[in-house]
């Protein structure tokens, strides 16, 4: 079977359409399962009471924010290096979903911080780095929406995403450094809650749910992007015919 034909947006479009329900439905089931385990089976935490149950959505969304950024950079890089339009479109499709998960992790982190440490926002290394990650997403999205020419937008986005991806470990390291120096002012996370098996299971199930959800949503958005570019291209061709 010649898989390469799916590298063309026109051919991938129907395939993507068929794939979507295979990811959307399991995603809903996994969310339900994960939350069931998290709320009905996992016990109340000794230290934090029931407030800790936020982690079942907080940790997966933080991980998704990070994974999706790397994935976005990889697709953008492939699109640029191999002149593969579909890969670039994939990167653009991922961006908003990745930003949303990052935002979700910041908000849920803040809501977890208030009952646990007494403050909505603590400038600890992870939270600060996540905030900066959100800025990087916003930069990518802003740059692409500011450029009308899709070819330029794809490639400029690729440069930015790759520069960003290299910087993420540097930024994380420097924020951690900054944090350990300012220990007095910041609030330290006194270790993770001891992870009992049902808690870990719930987190992992919700993480899987997030992955399936992301694939479904990104494919939907990708199809919209394919249609938009197709329309713009045909309108352009008509005007110049």
């Amino acid at each position, binding site marked *: 079977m010649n898989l390469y034909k799916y590298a063309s947006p026109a051919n991938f479009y129907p395939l993507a359409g068929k794939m979507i329900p295979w990811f959307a439905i399991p995603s809903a089931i996994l969310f339900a399962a994960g939350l069931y385990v998290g709320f009905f089976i996992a016990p109340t935490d000794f230290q934090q009471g029931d407030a800790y149950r936020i982690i079942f959505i907080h940790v997966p969304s933080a991980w998704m924010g990070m994974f999706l950024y790397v994935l976005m950079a990889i697709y953008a890089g492939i699109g640029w290096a191999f002149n593969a339009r579909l890969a670039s479109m994939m990167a653009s499709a991922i961006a908003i979903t990745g930003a949303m998960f990052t935002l979700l992790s910041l908000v849920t982190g803040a809501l977890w911080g208030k009952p646990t440490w007494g403050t909505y926002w603590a400038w600890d290394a992870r939270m600060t780095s996540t905030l900066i990650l959100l800025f990087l997403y916003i930069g990518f999205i802003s740059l692409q929406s500011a450029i009308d020419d899709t070819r*330029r937008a794809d490639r*400029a986005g690729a440069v930015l995403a790759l520069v960003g991806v290299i910087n993420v470990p540097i930024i994380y390291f420097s924020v951690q*450094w900054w944090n350990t120096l300012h220990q007095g002012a910041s609030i330290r996370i006194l270790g993770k809650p001891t992870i009992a098996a049902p808690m870990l299971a719930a987190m992992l199930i919700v993480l899987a749910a997030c992955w399936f959800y992301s694939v479904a949503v990104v494919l939907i958005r990708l199809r919209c992007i394919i249609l938009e570019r197709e329309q713009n291209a045909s309108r352009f061709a008509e005007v110049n015919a």
Partner: protein
Amino acid sequence: MLRWIVWRDLTLAWRRRADILSTVFFFIIVVSLFPLGIGPETQLLRSIAPGVIWVAALLASMLSLNRLFANDLQDGTLEQLLLTPQPLFLVVLGKVLAHWIVSEIPLVLIAPLVGLQFDIPGETLLILVVSLLVGTPVLSLIGSVGAALTLGLRGGGVLISILVLPLYIPALIFGAGAVEASIIGASPAPHLYLLGAFAIVSLIFSPWATAAALRISLE
């Protein structure tokens, strides 16, 4: 070739001296706003000084990035530069070097005066200058990537800021950290070494990224 580019950019900048001065004035004004907004209490000012001065340097650098490529784009020189047989990497390096000399060095020189406004002790003023000396190349180098990516786009300065300011954060942390360490009596050396390392990494990778971005923007 490198020398020629640097010399050319310096000459052109000299003809537009007002632009250079405006960057410095912006820096001074922004720094002066903070005491006005926060209050003149010396202890407080001394504690916020490293961060405030460094952030003002970041913002002033942001504003000057436009000058890097925009003028050459307008008169067609940029396209010619892309066509020369010399590696674009070198052209970019030359322009960034000229930009650093023209836009960042004045900030480094003015910094001690500004530092006095915040009652920073003498030895720390020296560390402030050193940290800016080591850190400002990073601002020019990383800024050049943003300038190349946003060449000719509407949204101008704000768009560059959104792209580049997050990438400036490590420089800010180590630069301001060095000054703050000096104020509290700790050694600024580790901060300065890390800042230096970051500068070297930027020096190696940014011109290449900027060159790629220029080709993308000018196609």
